[in-house]
């Protein structure tokens, strides 16, 4: 099928301008780029669908053309046109909101969260806290120091609660480091770091 190269070049220029504008920081210019690109792509669909033709309406002809233009491509473009208007309206309301917040410009700055990820490390990840093991970053039993409502407790309060309210199913607080010399029993006086399977 022969294609209209002149049109294609016009489309190319439109799309190039649109793409350039899309990569700007200003929201309005991005929107303009989007509109240019959408015009370009609409034209591209039309041009690629075939040559000029009669309107695809039964019984109408113009300039004695041989064939009808492609109605399928036209239907697609029609929906695209209307949707683009909806998008433009929405982006413009975004522009307005951004302007109200920024007060002087409508530029989109770098995402601070992404920047945080880019500069941070595992240690500064949002799910880390002081109760984590400093070396392995795993949860430790220090993270248990909360009451039933989720309020933080100090270690002393926690131990006190544990003594008063008989609270079952806690791992022994020091299962990991059992070095203290108990007053009785050979077993507890044995020095030697052991590794309970719990942390």
């Amino acid at each position: 099928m022969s294609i209209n190269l002149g049109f294609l070049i016009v489309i190319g220029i439109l799309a190039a301008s649109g793409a350039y504008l899309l990569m700007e920081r200003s929201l309005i210019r991005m929107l303009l780029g989007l509109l240019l690109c959408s015009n370009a792509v609409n034209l591209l669909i039309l041009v690629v669908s075939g040559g000029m033709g009669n309107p695809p309406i039964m019984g109408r002809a113009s300039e004695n053309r041989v064939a009808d233009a492609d109605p399928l491509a036209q239907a697609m473009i029609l929906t695209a046109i209307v949707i683009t208007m909806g998008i433009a309206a929405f982006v413009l309301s975004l522009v307005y909101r951004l302007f109200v917040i920024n007060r002087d410009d409508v530029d989109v700055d770098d995402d601070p969260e992404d920047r945080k990820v880019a500069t941070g490390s595992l240690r500064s990840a949002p799910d880390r806290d002081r109760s984590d093991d400093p070396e392995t970053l795993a949860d430790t039993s220090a993270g248990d120091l909360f009451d039933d409502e989720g309020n933080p407790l100090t270690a002393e309060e926690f131990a006190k609660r544990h003594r008063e309210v008989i609270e079952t199913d806690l791992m022994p607080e020091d299962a990991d480091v059992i070095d203290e010399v108990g007053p009785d029993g050979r077993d507890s006086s044995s020095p030697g770091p052991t590794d309970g399977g719990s942390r």
Partner: protein
Amino acid sequence: MLVALALSALCAPPIIRWLGTRGFYVLALAPAGALVWVIANWPRAGESPAVQTIEWVPVLDMEIVTRFDTLSAILSVLILGVGALVLCYCAHYFDDARPRVAVFGGEMIAFAAAMFGLVVSDNMLVLYVFWELTTVLSFMLVGFYGIRATARRAATQALLVTTAGGLAMLVGIIMLGERTGSYLLSDLLADPPADGVYASVAVVLLLIGALSKSAIVPFHFWLPGAMAAPTPVSAYLHAAAMVKAGIYLIARLAPAFAETPSWHVAVVVLGMITMILGGWRSLRELDLKLVLAFGTVSQLGFLAVLVGIGDANVAMAGLAMLVAHALFKAALFMVVGIIDHSTGTRDIRKLARLGQRLPVLALTAAVAGASMAGLPFTIGFVGKETAFASVWDTGAYLPWQSETIDIVLVIGSVITFAYTCRFLWGAFGRKVRSTPSPAVAKMHPPGAMFYLAPVLLAVAGVAAGFLSPQIGSLFEPYAETLPAYGHKLEHLAMWHGFGLPVVFSIIVVVGGALLFLLVRQLRGKIFRYRPLVNADRIYDAALRGADTLSLMLTRNTQRGSLPITQGVILSTAIILPTVVLAWGGRNQLDWRGFDSASQAVIGGVIAVCGVAAVILRNRLAAVLVVGLTGYGAGMLFALYGAPDLALTQFLVETLTLVIFVLVLRKLPAEPEPRHATGFKPLRALIGVAFGASLVVIGLFAAAARSEQPVQVDIPAAAYEFGQGANAVNVLLVDIRAWDTLGEVCVLIVAATGVASMVFRNRRFGAVPRVADAARMQAGINGEDVDDPVPPDRTRWLLGSDFRDPRHRSMVLEATTRLIFPTMVVLSVYFFYAGHNAPGGGFAGGLTMGLALVLRYLAGGRYELGEALPVEPGRILGAGLAISAGTAVTSLFLGAPALSSAVFEVTLPVLGDIKLVTALFFDLGIYLIVVGLVLDVLRSLGARLDIERTSAERQPAPIPATASEVPG
């Protein structure tokens, strides 16, 4: 039965809430009832097992097939019996019925149901579903104390390890199922695939699932961690039920695969390692529960070896040990729970002389412990004796192999004896103290019913020992599915006469006692160093690795800068198609120049405008040139033979310009100089490349067309089926109506988005009307509204009375007054004629929208309210309801959704009228477009007017906005 259990799981939380913790007794009735059913329907030897089939997802061969044979029955009894006792135990374990406890009850029963389903399902895919159900439920049960970090960690660990294993198992299941052509376990066992690499890989994958579930090395570490769960969960999941699922699967598959080498390595060797390692770790723990947990790991290794060898006699021993382990380990866990509950600690160092205070408990523990250690008169003894005897002369291996296995098992049993002693001593011993330790002294004694469950289980362990011949006869149907290698199947019995097993048992008792004393003496020396390899640390490292990887990936893909992201997307859009094009075949290119001079002129204008849009800094100017490209495109559409497109494009372009101006009036005309981005060569390069790639792709795409396009038939089809001469409109409202329905939904979302961006947290309402303005004026002394009308002027538009005279234009008002009705009529004509001539719902709606724009521009915001005093949201909703209603109605009439029909009516004046139902669909579109425009005008127009007014009136509060929304 399964359904009944699942239902009772749902009923559980209300029962607990209603009855308090005593409700657990009621809950225990559910598994107990199921247990009665199991015993009543015990599979008889010689008969084929009961099979039930329910169709489910036939495409995936996932019909639910349950098959109830001996092995299933044995495990069901354990699951349901222990489940009922554990629930009774819960009634005393929990002091108050907090909401979490109520949910806990439901989870326990759901778990019992899932386990029951697991052991009776014959379809491997369904088995996998139940398998993962138990995993998820165990996650919730282990995470009972979700507030605590350790509980969360333990639950996550158990979930990750067992799910990873489960996924491997799923792959294995699919491999086996695809190879054998059936996903039924019974078919697989009847006709196992030939030994080979494929089958070995599949079996190993299956076994990874089984081993991870049963906490066999190297997956053992999750089980001790999971001791953060409440003790009933440990007693049930980690002694009797969930960890047995892996053993069950091994036992189930043993008849088919026990002879493959990969099986030997995976099951028998790892099982032996687990037995020794778990026992050894158990000797060094100080927490009673951890002693038991590592003991469980050790016993599971033992069980895996026994059921994995695949000899009939060994399997008898394995099943005996399976039952024994469930009984004694659940009892011991419950004992620990009672100790914990009474004294508040499980630390061996804090307990001394507890045996004196709680003699009944000590006795219970001793009886259950005897079964664990393998002392006479218990089922544990029967199982161990049988194991020692049968492994020694099994025919499944070479003699030296089986003897080695047996000796390893004896060593494992020695350690078992030692940690049993350690457990009993640690819990109840005197520990060279003359008085009880503080924790024991301050304890509050447990109630009598608290003892019920552990005592029953411990006694059952002894009773089963005496009843072992009868129990053994129940196991035999399963054992008979395995080869006996020339030996005859021996019946279980307490006493087989003197022989090797008795010698082994004596070695176990003596050696175990010595080992216990030795470890007690030399604790400090033996356990001085941490083990070099710790699976828990490896797990941590693996998780950290995954975290690091994801951080790295995020860091390198999410740069946070929109231009960079856009650039990457555009570059991909350039490079990918170009590369594919260069790679594949190409057609001969065929092009021509412009068809006519008018095309060339318009094309040139468009191109110039496009470039100008890039260069112009003034925002309004840039918007205008972009608008020009749009109008140009519309003219090209018209020249090309697309009147619908041209019409819509012109209308849309005009509307877009208006919206732009409405927003831009709030912004400075030019961006501040500091924001000037300048000319970026890289950006320009990407832009030019993008344009060029479009040209190239367009050329090749057109050249690639060789077949008769589908469009040739569309107009005729549109006329015949869609009853419309305008093919484009019929495409939109009939042939591709689904597409359009989706599109108008996008419009609704956009309209709502605009309104919410401008109004933010305010309730939406209709556009203000003149009456509102009058009320407002009365309230605020006319201060916020512009001057009232001079009486001598002719009123063209009602609402414009409230505008500042300086902003009014007599000509515009008069014109609007005159042409508004015409535009409305035109829009209705476009809408109605659209089926046969250019127009349609979109064009009609846009024309109506433009008419509204005119009213707003000429008369201000109150005039807009007068023009269409309806809330935009209502219009949008009505439009969607009509469009979707058309789709649904045709469904009701028995046709596919969105099919159209024709009515012909004759009206007096208008004559014959042909009505296509697609017109109603188009009416929906019309309304939605009108709603969108009205919404935009109300938000970006009327609302922004007020924001300016209030901003100028700073710092006074905003009475206008407060009364602006009347409801």
